[in-house]
């Protein structure tokens, strides 16, 4: 039993990271109907930005408090990732909006490769480790929970609440939802559609950057290929939960995190990805629009 709960905690931690990345996929898909394949690399880039800030901070101000270091890492990573994602949308996706559907898909894959190669060239191809930042560990009723895990789960919960509030309760969120549902009508009501789409890319990138920082803190290492596997997992999470649905992305992320850690705990770790994708396939067979995805039933 304790072992099971232990795995649940591990799964939730991993799932939180996937969920945060998945939000970016699902929001962009919702608003312009394309998969931003470079989003995983935006996450990796966020990790690298955090790494660089960490190295700079520790060498310039030895003994800087961990809380402050983490905060600065997160903020700088968010700014850098947002800038990149904004630029990508501006130069590679916007000119292709309204052309045939495969064109933005291909450029998105191109952007993904360009970003990871850029990091490979500028930061080197090897794993970049950092010393453990947060090492406290608590023992509660036989279950080991590290402070890192608590931090990740709490930060995810807080950010997702903030996000939910923005999307559902603010004029910006209303403009985003309107643009998603009928772009032309939103423009007729004075909404600057291009700006709204840019903001969506920025918001998605900011969350991915936080996920990147958490990932770096949790595993203590980041490498230029890190955009790919977590990116694909998060994309899977978005599809599993129902692409276009925000709660779906979080649910999908948590589910995939749980499946992975439980499978690795009870069966063989080599097949954990097989398990994840099998479950994706099974869910999609019975519920093609994902767990919380909406089947389109509307009066016209």
């Amino acid at each position, binding site marked *: 039993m304790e072992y099971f709960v232990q795995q649940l905690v591990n799964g939730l931690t991993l799932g939180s990271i996937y969920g945060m990345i998945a939000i970016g996929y699902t929001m962009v898909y919702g608003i312009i109907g394309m998969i931003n394949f470079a989003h995983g690399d935006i996450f990796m880039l966020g990790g690298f930005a955090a790494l660089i800030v960490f190295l700079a901070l520790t060498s310039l101000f030895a003994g800087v408090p961990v809380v402050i270091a983490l905060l600065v890492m997160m903020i700088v990573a968010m700014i850098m990732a947002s800038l990149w994602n904004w630029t990508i949308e501006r130069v590679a996706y916007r000119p292709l909006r309204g052309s045939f559907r495969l064109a933005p898909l291909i450029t998105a894959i191109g952007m993904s490769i360009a970003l990871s190669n850029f990091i490979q060239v500028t930061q080197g191809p090897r794993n970049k480790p950092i010393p453990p930042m947060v090492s406290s560990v608590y023992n509660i009723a036989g279950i080991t929970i590290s402070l890192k895990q608590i931090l990740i789960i709490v930060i995810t919960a807080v950010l997702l609440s903030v996000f939910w509030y923005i999307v559902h309760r603010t*004029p910006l969120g*209303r*403009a985003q*939802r*309107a643009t998603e*549902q*009928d772009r*032309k*009508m*939103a*423009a*007729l*009501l*004075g*909404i*600057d*559609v291009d700006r709204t789409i840019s903001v969506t890319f920025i918001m998605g990138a900011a969350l991915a950057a936080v996920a990147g920082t958490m990932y770096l803190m949790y595993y203590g290492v980041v490498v230029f290929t890190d955009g790919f596997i977590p990116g694909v997992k998060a994309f899977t999470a978005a599809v599993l939960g129902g692409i276009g649905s925000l709660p779906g992305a979080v649910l999908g992320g948590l589910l995939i995190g749980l499946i992975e850690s439980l499978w690795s705990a009870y069966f063989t770790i080599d097949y954990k990805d097989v398990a994840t994708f099998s479950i994706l396939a099974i869910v999609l067979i019975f519920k093609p629009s994902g767990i919380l995805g*909406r089947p389109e039933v*509307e*009066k016209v």
Partner: protein
Amino acid sequence: MTALLQVKAVETYYGNIRALAGVDVEVQKGEIVCLIGANGAGKSTLMMTICGSPQARTGQILFEGRDITRMPTHEIARLRIAQSPEGRRIFPRMTVYENLQMGASLDNLKYFNEDVEKMFALFPRLKERQSQRGGTLSGGEQQMLSIARALMARPKLLLLDEPSLGLAPLIVKGIFEAIRKLNETEGLTVFLVEQNAFAALKLSHRAYVMVNGQVTMSGGGRELLANPEVRAAYLEGGRH
């Protein structure tokens, strides 16, 4: 005095197909002007061209003397041209209340509470349905919502594309009455497209008849109503 809206020799294309073939229309401040014509004559295209979506290929559109031909749609909307477009275009997964909030986004909801009460008085049905999703409304309710949403922007010029479409005659009467009242008490300028030519011409100060992307006739509303050619054209579906 220059007209509030001037459309001069406008041509609009969908790909290579010419939908508007040199249209001239004027709407004075405080007028109700109506555009009648058969299906496919280009009426809705003219409405959307005024809002810059699609943009006119040639010709000029002036609003308050200012050239808006090449302006992006959202900037045109910010000049207070509000439209209740063809097909109503209600946001289906937003509540009625949120749809109305979208209408008031130009002023960042500054007059929202005041205006929403007016809309609920005008269309009590919307008040009953305020927390229901737009996509679940009936066609008539969506039409009311679409008009109310346009009015929430406090427009200087209200464009209505077939406000009577799909509505019961009694409700149509109510909507036309509401338009007349807003025009008389608040000086609201209205440019509307209608298939229901009889009611629309009775309501309008002036009217244009459109055939195959061109304005073929214009005059006072009641004047056109008495015109045998218009009567014939309307009854025969636009063929002369």
